[in-house]
Structure formats: structure tokens, C-alpha cells
């Protein structure tokens, strides 16, 4: 599979006399995958995300979007169209006073003909599940709905990849669930590459691969199972593990030998059933 984004020995700091925020990052985001970047606050995960569509450019090293270097100013609009970005605070990324006008904003900027804008925004709003709110004012929507408006505004550009920077941090459980469901659908049904930045381990557990970051460096890359089964190590990075893995880990402290890879409720219950009834 070819790469959507390739990060090659990326070093970055916000000013000459500050510390390095990113220290030698190497990463390949494959086309069509659902990748999650997990890390505690201040580990550099948002800074890394901003390199994916050239909001920031590396001080040393390179970031490639397909075959375009993000330092190439002439291709800026191409990069932005290929890699869309959704941010944490839904209020601060909605421009217009009507939902459908906001979803159309990127297409208007790109100079898409009026008739095509109509078709594409209806598709995008359908995909994000907000078509029924298209004539509403954004400030009358809930946080989760607003965030899906922002997502629709990005997918209207028909990007190959969406980067979401803690999109659920400000939402209630209901809004969070709906946003995550939408993201997974985009990945599965529309083949859009997804990079989800988060510190919620339950969101990371749903990804194809998890990148764990700490203090400006990548600590480990692996499947959620590979990552979360290492309970003590994950906890040492100030992150959570699923309660299911934690339970197995705690029982093992009493001299048993349970698998910490049983992440889902069903797997965990099945394992405990065997443990108790044998």
C-alpha cells in the first residue's frame, strides 16, 4: 500500500530559543488506514498534526503529502484539499451563520461552480448525518452536531485524508459517540484515510494502528492490542488502558496468567468465565 503522508526525521520548535517540540519524528500514514496518535497533553501530538497539511513546516526534515513536499508553497492549496483538518473547539471553526453555507465555504474558496457545490455539500452533509440541520444556525446546535458540521465542511472538499485534532475533547458522551461513528464510517465506506489525535484510549482502541507519543518523540507504533496489552508501560506515560486490560493485569499481580490482550467486553468476559469455571 502506498503512503498518504510520510514524515521523514521531522524536527520542530516554536521559536529559536524554545525547546524542540518535535524531535526526529519518522512516520508513514498508509492510504485508507485509520491511524490514531495517542499521547498526554503537551506531548507534541497537535504540533505533529499541524505539519500534515502545512499549517506548520519542519525546521529540519521533511513531510510529504503523497508526492508533494509541504514546504512547497506553490502546492499549498493542493495539500489543503488533499488533507483536511478538524479541530477541538467546534465553535471556532464554523464561519457562516447557516449550516449549509458553512459546509460550502471550502468549495467556494476553491472556485467550484455553483451547481457542483450544491451536489457536493448535500453529499457531505448526508455523510456526516447533518442534512436535516442544513438550514439551522450553527449556534443553535449541540457540540456534537457542530463538530459534525465542521467534518462535513472538510469532506465536501473530497479530501483523501482527514486529520482530527482531539475532535471529541469538548463533547458529552452522546456527542462523542456520534462523532466517532461518523469518523469510522468515512474511513470504512468512503475509503478516506483518518488520522485521529486523542488522549482517549477507548477511541484509540478502535483504530487500525496506534502511535504513542511522549515528550516530542514517538514511543511505539502498533495495533491497539499490541499497545494496550503493555499495561504498566502505558500507565507510565500518564495514559489510560482499557479497564478490561487493567483488570487482567491486576489479577496477574496475584499470580495468575491472564491475557491483557482481551480488550473487548466480550473477550474479557469470556476469559474471566474460563478463569472462574476451570
Amino acid at each position, binding site marked *: 500500500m502506498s503512503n498518504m503522508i510520510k514524515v521523514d526525521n521531522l524536527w520542530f520548535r516554536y521559536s529559536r530559543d524554545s525547546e524542540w517540540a518535535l524531535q526526529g519524528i519518522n512516520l508513514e500514514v498508509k492510504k485508507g488506514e485509520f491511524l490514531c496518535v495517542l499521547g498526554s497533553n503537551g506531548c507534541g501530538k497537535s504540533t505533529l498534526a499541524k505539519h500534515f497539511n502545512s499549517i506548520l513546516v519542519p525546521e529540519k526534515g521533511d513531510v510529504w503529502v503523497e508526492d508533494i513536499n509541504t514546504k512547497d508553497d506553490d502546492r499549498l492549496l493542493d495539500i489543503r484539499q488533499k488533507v483536511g483538518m478538524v*479541530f477541538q473547539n467546534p465553535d*471556532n471553526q464554523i*464561519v457562516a*451563520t*447557516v449550516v449549509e*453555507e458553512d459546509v460550502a465555504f471550502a468549495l467556494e474558496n*476553491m472556485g467550484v461552480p455553483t451547481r457542483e*457545490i450544491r451536489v457536493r*455539500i448535500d453529499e457531505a452533509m448526508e455523510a456526516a448525518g447533518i442534512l436535516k440541520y442544513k438550514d439551522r444556525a450553527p449556534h443553535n446546535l449541540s457540540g456534537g452536531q457542530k463538530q459534525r458540521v465542521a467534518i462535513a465542511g472538510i469532506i465536501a472538499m473530497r479530501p483523501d485524508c482527514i486529520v482530527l485534532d482531539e475532535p471529541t475533547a469538548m463533547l458529552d458522551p452522546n456527542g462523542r459517540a456520534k462523532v466517532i461513528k461518523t469518523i469510522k464510517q468515512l474511513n470504512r465506506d468512503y475509503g478516506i484515510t483518518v488520522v485521529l489525535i486523542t488522549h482517549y484510549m477507548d477511541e484509540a482502541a478502535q483504530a487500525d494502528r496506534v502511535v504513542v507519543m511522549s515528550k516530542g518523540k514517538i514511543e511505539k507504533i502498533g495495533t491497539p492490542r499490541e499497545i494496550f496489552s503493555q499495561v504498566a508501560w502505558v500507565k507510565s506515560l500518564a495514559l489510560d488502558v482499557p479497564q478490561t486490560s487493567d483488570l487482567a493485569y491486576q489479577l496477574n499481580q496475584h499470580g495468575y496468567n491472564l491475557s491483557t490482550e482481551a480488550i473487548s467486553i466480550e473477550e474479557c468476559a469470556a476469559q474471566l468465565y474460563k478463569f472462574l469455571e476451570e
Partner: protein
Amino acid sequence: MLKDITIGQHFPGNSPVHNLDPRLKIVLTVAFVFVLFLSTNFVGLALAAAVTLLIYKVSGIPLKMLKKSIKPLLPLILFTVILNLFFIKGPGDPLISLGFIKIYKEAILFIIVMICRIIFLICGTSLLTYTTSPIMLTDGLESLMKPLNKIHFPVHEMAMMITIALRFIPTLIEETDKIMNAQKSRGAMLDSGSFADRIKALVPILIPLFISSLRRAEELATAMECRCYHGGEGRTRLKQLKITGTDITNTVIVAVMFAIILSTRMFFPRVI
């Protein structure tokens, strides 16, 4: 509470008034203002009232909305009335004379005309915001002001700023409410004390509000860039303004009505 403030309130609808192209609506509103100030006789004003009522009827906006929009301006109207009542002098004898207070017939006529004008003015301009969404209004303004581009006036940028301001007004009102509640919970006194105390009490509200607005502005700018925003050049629109046959017919009808109101100047004597 702050939440009760409504700025440029808009009532969506599907009447010919709602559907009229915003540019024509803006032009007609401006024309109406001129017509009002050129109406110097009661027949003209009566006709203007009739036209206003007719258009409200067509638009389906309830007349009680008028009461709401006039109410906040009552003090202003009252002030004008009192001022003019005592200061306008006529050539003849005063109607009422109480010591140094003298009230002339001209003053009363002038006041009646003034009140009519102010009320119709509010009615007419409110109708524009009631029946036009903020976004259509900005689009209309942008389109009308396009010729100013030639003298390097940033028309698109102005329109974008108005749109963003309209988008953020409710958000900032909500935020102000939240910050006020938070500071009240720490014992801030916002509604008592001397004038100086009250000004001082605003600091804990204005500073957080200012900081958060800056943060919002920065985040919004990044989000706009992520969506390929690069100024007005080469931009297309979701909703393109288009003047239809019905628009033209309706505009001509209204223009004829305005002409009739104006023509009364020729047949009836000026009252002021």
C-alpha cells in the same frame, strides 16, 4: 438578560418580500428613506403608511413585531418631541402661551410629521432585516459595492468580516453570560455600588472575554486556511444572486407606489 438581545433578527419565510433579490431590497429600502424625507404633506405620509402596511401584509411579518422594534426608540422620540415643541417658532401667534413657554402651530405639525417619519423609517428598515437572512444581506451589500473595488476598497474582506461578526455575536453573548456568572460566584458585584465601582467590576469580565476572543480569532483563522481560504479572488458562491422576472415586476410596482407618494408634493401644500 443578555440573551434577550436580538440583533438584526430574521424571520424566515417564503413571501414575495422574502424572495426579492437582496440588492433590489436594499435599493428599495434606501429609496423609501428618501421618499419619507421628501414627503412634506399628510396625504403623502398617509400613502406611505398604506404602502408600509401593505408590504408587511404581503411579507406575513406580524405587526406586533413593529411594536417591539419601536419600543426601544420611544425615549428618543419623546426627546425629539419635547425639544421641537418648545424651540420651533412660527410667524403667527402661539397656540398656547404659559409664561415663557410658547407653543406654535408649526411646532405641532412638525412633530407629527417627524414622528410619522421616524416610525415609518423603523418599519421600513426593520422589514429589510426581518425578511433577509444576514448572509443574503452581506451578499447583497458585497455585490452592490463591487464597483468600489476599482478604487481598491476591500469589498470582499468587508463582507467576510460582517459575516464572521454575525456568526460570533451569539457565541460571544453566551460567553459573556458564562464569565459574568463565574465572577458573580466569586462575589463580584456587578449590579450595585457607585459608578466607579461598576466600571472596576467590568475588568474581571472584559479581560477574560478579550483573551478568549483573541484565541477564537486565531483558531478560526487557522481553520479557514485549512479550508483553502485565500481572499476573494476566484471565489464562487453556493447561492448566486439572480434577479428574476418576478423580482423586476415587484420592484416596478413598489417604485410606482413611491412615485405616487412623491407626486403628492405637486398637488398638496407643504405642512412644514
